[in-house]
């Protein structure tokens, strides 16, 4: 997943949680960069028509931005689910965050053929828990077996 997609995913989740614009500070925290770096990328996303940035209010994704963010979130869900259910990784959230930059969408699509993902994905993603709500149950079930 490229850097722009990681930002789009982060903005999407923050604006969903806030039910409004995403603050640039929260975006910088989510992708673990300085506010200056976040501002630079937000500017690029604006130029590409993927986000609108209003000073003192925050960032909102455009319709095109939302489509791409949802695709990125789906890729992230595949990585999390693959780590949890195929490789049995308990810290799947942390590892998915570390690995997402190296896993391309095409690779995630291939991994998707061997996992069980819910049809409502990525709407079942719980931003607060940083994981798919359905995955949590599946993983705990597996762990207690």
């Amino acid at each position: 997943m490229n850097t722009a997609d990681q930002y789009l995913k982060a903005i999407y989740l923050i604006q969903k949680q806030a039910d409004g614009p995403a603050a640039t500070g929260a975006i910088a925290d989510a992708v673990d960069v300085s506010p200056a770096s976040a501002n630079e990328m937000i500017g690029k996303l604006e130029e590409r028509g993927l986000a609108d940035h209003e000073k003192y209010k925050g960032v909102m994704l455009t319709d095109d931005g939302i489509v791409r963010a949802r695709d990125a979130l789906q890729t992230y869900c595949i990585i999390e689910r693959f780590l949890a259910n195929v490789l049995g990784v308990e810290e799947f959230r942390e590892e998915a965050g570390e690995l997402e930059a190296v896993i391309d969408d095409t690779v995630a699509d291939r991994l998707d053929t061997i996992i069980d993902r819910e049809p409502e994905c990525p709407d079942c993603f719980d931003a607060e828990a940083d994981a798919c709500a359905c995955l949590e149950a599946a993983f705990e079930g597996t762990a207690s077996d």
Partner: protein
Amino acid sequence: MSVGSRITSDDQLARLLQIGIVLEEVVEARAYHHYRSLDEELDAEIEELLEEAATESAEHRERLEDLIADLDVESVPFEEIETLVEARYGRTQPDDFDGILYDQLCNEETAYKFYDDLIEAVEDTDAELSVDREAVLDVLRAIRADEAAGVEEVARIMEDR
């Protein structure tokens, strides 16, 4: 989450190598089952292609397993993964020669992209790995070259048909 595509530890490298092994398992399982499912009507060229793909994937998997062994990290039960992949290979199983070739092309392209990204991530890392980074890169570059040759081979067969 942090942006950027660098390897930051032995564990992370091992995890990516494990993902490579699963991808190779998927290729091997799909090639094997396509080979079997169309056994009677399979033509010699496709038969050879699938056989080579399965053999090559098994060889790549072994080379990746050797790299993981050198990293001295906790392993995953590969037999379970093999069983799982085997059980699920057929979800998008193609039903004709064009489908098989297209699927094989996707396999090779996906593997190429995976190794290409992984090589870049290893090249860019400033983390201290417990293994010889150049030796790891040599193996990964050799596998990537195989995948590139595989893409060309499948594309050539598709063009000729």
